[in-house]
């Protein structure tokens, strides 16, 4: 028989039992749709996480003052006073895998402009901080190196603070009060959104020269943190090792003693998140594949019923000259058509649902072509696998008995 004729025959046979064919396909539709939706949504979520991490700063490492453990009492991180400006300078100078290092302190303060006031974090740092954080300005500029050396009372506003204090009016050149001191606004930052690691609003911040915050707001010499930018993302682990060994050396920590500082690598966080996401995607894909498998069993079930129902037809076909191969191919093709149509509708269904989810959560839409190709092939493979047994059963019928079958 010509393949085109066999194909047409399969379509007509399925068309005779429309409801049954549609219900059988539903198994494949849900299976293939679920696989595509899970992969599409998973990829979208991973891309979103990457985007958030990129927003925190490229190749960034965080060096923080460590915890103090005295007489068995651990008072938490950020308590040691050993992290100092010369450490930041040394990191920038002596670690080959570090491109920039920005020292910083921070303090919670009440800020006032006119009749508006707002409680926020005030950071003291140096101009290279904006470069390390990969943080563009919305208006104005950074404070200068000179402002740092002179402890000038100038400040840059994060987007959230700007909104609360100024609304739609222009803050540049205005003076706000931080604690008891007046600060002149020189710039505002572009919004950065929620931090991927800590879920904090990164825009709820005011940034001022390091020395100003240290001397005039805090009255301390030591640093709270140093933001470090590695020369490339790949080198951030090397940079981390270099910083640890440099700081242990500078702080004269004996080999068996713990660090009095912490170094966190954003690449670590990114990798952990990516791994978490891929484990989730794998699990969901397995669940979806089980749905696909169940769809395949549905095809087998209906094909077995069909073979029994059409025993007489098989007998007639054999009597007029159909070979075993002809009969086997006829039923296999019906199973494949079920799988293919179910798979095609499933793809539409999966693509549509991942679009819907992406839209809802504002994720990028990412449906890799391999997922579509793979699930189509998988659907056909399942149809062949589960269609083969009923088709073989049909082809093995004895024509004499089949003709006599009522």
């Amino acid at each position, binding site marked *: 028989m010509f393949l085109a*004729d066999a194909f047409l025959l399969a379509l007509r046979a399925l068309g*005779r039992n429309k409801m049954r064919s549609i219900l059988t396909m539903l198994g494949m539709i849900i299976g293939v749709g679920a696989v595509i939706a899970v992969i599409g949504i998973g990829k979208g979520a991973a891309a979103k996480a990457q985007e958030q991490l990129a927003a925190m700063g490229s190749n960034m490492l965080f060096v923080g003052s460590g915890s103090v453990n005295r007489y068995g009492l651990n008072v938490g991180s950020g308590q040691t006073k050993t992290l100092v400006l010369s450490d930041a300078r040394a990191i920038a100078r002596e670690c080959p895998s570090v491109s920039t290092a920005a020292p910083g302190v921070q303090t919670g303060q009440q800020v006032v402009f006119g009749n508006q006031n707002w409680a926020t974090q005030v950071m003291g740092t140096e101009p290279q901080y904006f470069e390390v954080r990969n943080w563009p300005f919305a208006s104005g500029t950074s404070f200068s190196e000179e402002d740092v050396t002179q402890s000038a009372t100038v400040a840059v506003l994060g987007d959230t603070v700007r909104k609360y204090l100024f609304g739609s009016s222009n803050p540049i050149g205005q003076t706000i009060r931080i604690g008891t001191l007046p600060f002149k606004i020189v710039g505002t930052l572009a919004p950065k959104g929620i931090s991927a690691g800590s879920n904090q609003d990164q825009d709820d911040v005011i940034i001022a020269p390091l020395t100003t915050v240290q001397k005039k707001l805090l009255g301390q010499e030591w640093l709270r943190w140093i933001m470090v930018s590695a020369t490339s993302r790949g080198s951030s682990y090397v940079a981390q090792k270099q910083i640890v060994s440099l700081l242990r050396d500078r702080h004269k920590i004996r080999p068996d003693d713990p660090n009095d500082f912490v170094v966190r690598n954003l690449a670590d966080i990114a990798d952990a998140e990516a791994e978490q996401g891929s484990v989730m995607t794998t699990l969901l894909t397995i669940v979806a594949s089980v749905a696909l498998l169940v769809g395949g069993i549905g095809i087998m079930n209906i094909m077995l019923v069909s073979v029994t129902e059409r025993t007489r037809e098989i007998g007639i076909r054999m*009597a007029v000259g159909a*070979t*075993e191969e002809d009969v086997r191919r006829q039923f296999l093709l019906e199973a494949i058509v079920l799988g293919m149509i179910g798979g095609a509708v499933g793809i539409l269904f999966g693509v549509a649902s991942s679009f819907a989810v992406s839209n809802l959560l504002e994720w990028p839409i990412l449906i890799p072509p391999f997922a579509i190709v793979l699930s189509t092939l998988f659907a056909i493979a399942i149809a062949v696998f589960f269609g083969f047994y009923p088709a073989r059963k049909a082809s093995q019928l004895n024509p004499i008995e089949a003709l006599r079958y009522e």
Partner: protein
Amino acid sequence: MATTNSLANAKTATKHAGVPLVSVREVRKTYALGETEVHALRGISVSIHAGDFVAIMGASGSGKSTFMNILGCLDRPTSGEYWLEGTDVSQLDKKELARVRNLKIGFVFQGFNLLGRTTALENTELPMLYSRVSKKEREQRARDALTLVGLGDRLDHFPSQMSGGQQQRVAIARALVNKPRILLADEPTGNLDSHTSVEVMDIFQKLNRDGLTIVLVTHEPDIARFTRRQIVFRDGHIKRDEVIDAPMIASEVLKTMPTIED
């Protein structure tokens, strides 16, 4: 019937010349039925020549159905030879047997065995689907075959829309469409009233007159009288094999019968 058909005589003159179309030699068929063995055929030898019109008769269990199944290449003998057109088909494998059924044998069954929800034309095309005939030629040949059996105006009818006689004529058209060497009919009139039965026998006689070899199973002596040779089976043996000198002519009989239908 004293008058002898001249056409039939002409065929009788030629049919013994040359090799027989069908030559069955010492064919046995044994089934295992649980512990016991059933001997359906106990050494059958018979020759059928091209142009013959044979009635196979016998009680149920006489082996006539088994014989027809072997003749139709639906079954293979346990032992013995079956030569069809110079080939020992008892030695062929399943695929080759399907090919023989497709090209050399036409089947007509008691229960018509048409595909439901399939038009007369498509039912007739069925054997050609398995012999790789182009769509256009399939349609043409099916149309011709249906016209030959008088159904040229019912090509698009479904079996459920046709009378038993019409359905059987579609089945005959289907059997003829691949131009078989031999037509096998298994109780073709078993489900038909007497008038329609004679009509079907009329079609068979016309086809036979044009040279088609026909073997027909029946248990009705009235039907067997339209053929030219009767073979009677009993207990797996051939009990009697005789030529009918003056077969009845269906078209003549039809004239004497009251017409009821159509």
